[in-house]
């Protein structure tokens, strides 16, 4: 992982008065998996569409494999493929035919395209569905097909735009396995996702975008450390805490924040700056109200995400 495969410099895109992407810059190294996270409407998909050359940036520059996306679109398109958000499968052609033409449009000969279409169906475990059209497949099968299709010419770069959205846990884990396999094969990948667990598992580095700007960047571990929370303690008291009890717990050194959300059945969530505070808080809570249940987890990327982008619902 030494050379930059993708370079994005001061990239911006406006639609009328709305700045969808607002001067973002980042690099992706060869073989790296970069996660692009953000709430709905943050600018992730617009960024991907600019990376593919589909949307023209209002300003800024993108180079992929040393080629400028706008000046050398054909050279750039030979370097990447995409697993898009939408099914985007041909409504009348069987999936084998769809894959065949997909490969032909990418410059493969008739013979090679036929062979790669068969191999792709095998890889996606969809050989028995070869004659069905894409819309006759289940959501999980469609996702597998889209992922497999993106690999039909084995490009060095892959854009995975929310590849597991709407999938059941089995299908999601199967797709994660595919992505791990691609990482092992040294693919450079940009992944957009709403699932923080997915980003944490799959990405070497994460960029959080909001309102078209980068608000945080780093490895998932680095971002968690940056939050200042070591771990999160959830505690269910035997008797409800009084306000004075909660104030006393909050004053224990090492406690960063303490909350008792409505509807949490009296449970409290304690953000700990350091684990050393754990002994003291458990003893104090036990004396004050008794303890029914307690659970200690490490701070997750989701905590980082919510801390940075807020908990309010987006339009």
């Amino acid at each position, binding site marked *: 992982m030494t050379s930059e495969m993708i370079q994005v410099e001061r990239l911006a895109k406006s639609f009328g008065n709305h700045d969808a992407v607002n001067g973002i810059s980042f690099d992706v190294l060869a073989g790296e998996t970069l996660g692009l996270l953000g709430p709905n409407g943050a600018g992730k998909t617009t960024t991907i*569409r600019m990376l*593919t*050359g*589909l*949307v*023209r940036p209002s300003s800024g520059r993108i180079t992929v494999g040393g080629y400028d996306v706008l000046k050398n*679109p*054909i050279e750039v*398109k*030979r370097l*990447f*493929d*995409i697993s*898009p958000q*939408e*099914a*985007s*499968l*041909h*409504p*009348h*052609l069987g999936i084998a*035919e769809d894959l065949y*033409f*997909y490969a*032909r*449009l*990418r*410059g493969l000969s008739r013979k090679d395209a036929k062979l790669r279409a068969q191999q792709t169906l095998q890889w996606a475990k969809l050989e028995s569905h070869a004659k069905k059209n894409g819309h006759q497949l289940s959501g999980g099968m469609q996702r597998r097909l889209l992922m497999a299709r993106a690999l039909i010419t084995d490009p060095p770069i892959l854009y995975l735009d929310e590849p597991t959205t709407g999938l059941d846990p089995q299908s999601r884990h199967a797709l994660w396995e595919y992505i791990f396999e691609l990482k092992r094969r040294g693919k450079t990948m940009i992944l957009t996702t709403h699932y923080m667990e997915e980003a944490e598992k799959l990405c070497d580095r994460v960029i959080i975008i909001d309102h078209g700007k980068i608000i945080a960047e780093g490895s998932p571990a680095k971002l968690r450390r940056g939050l200042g929370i070591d771990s999160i303690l959830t505690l269910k008291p035997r008797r409800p805490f009084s306000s004075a009890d909660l104030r006393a717990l909050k004053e224990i050194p090492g406690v960063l924040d303490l909350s008792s959300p409505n509807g949490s059945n009296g449970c409290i969530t304690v953000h700990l700056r350091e684990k050393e505070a754990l002994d003291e808080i458990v003893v104090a809570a036990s004396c004050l109200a008794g303890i029914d249940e307690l659970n200690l987890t490490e701070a997750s990327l989701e905590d980082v995400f919510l801390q940075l982008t807020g908990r309010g619902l987006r339009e």
Partner: protein
Amino acid sequence: MIPRPILASLVTFEREIRDYRKNIFYFALRNLIQPVFFVLVIGVGLGSFVNLPGRESYLSFMLPGILMMSVVQVCYQHFSSEIWMSKNHEGYLELLTMTAPIKPREAVAGYLLTGIVVAFFAVLCFLLPVWLLLPGFAISLSALMLFTIGLALFFTSAGIAVGVSVLDPHTLTTVGIFITMPLTYLCGVFVPVEMYPPPFRLMIEVIPLTPAIEGLREGGLPIAEIIYVWCAAALAVVAAIKVFERNMHP
């Protein structure tokens, strides 16, 4: 070794034709239904009461018009709906121009080639029964071929431009009606254009369908009309490429 741009257009063409072949029975029916009704109801039915000065029977006057009109309708309707669906509903048009190493103009070239084939299929669907039922019906095949290609290019381009730029399905239908209805009833299919007042006639004659119909009725190889239709087609192709590029790469 075929150069990449030509190969890209040919693969797009091959894919569109494969798709067309899948539903060829329905397309054949669609190509036949309206022309057959026009011939039976207006040509044979009402035509028996009509006498056009200096013309043979009303039916033989009407047939070249119906033939060219079916080319126009088939090309426009097929591509406006196909492109609209693939862009706004199915999403695979975007994928084609987004990730495949193919330029928008190469994709348009593939659609235009398909348009020519679709147009000839419509001509065949109409001419075969006509020749079976009216063995005396004569038409200049070279003029028919050249006008069919010209009109196919012009109205496939119009279909592509509308399909790629309209977002709302109701707008698509309304625009379609506003394009095909006046062409059907005004461009000399049922009534000789000489019957219109001069300024109105001038407007009608600008539309390439009118000189194509008039040219076919003349017989032989009407060079002026053919050149006019082909020039209009060339302009429409350039416009369709621009509209396609602008809409697929906003």
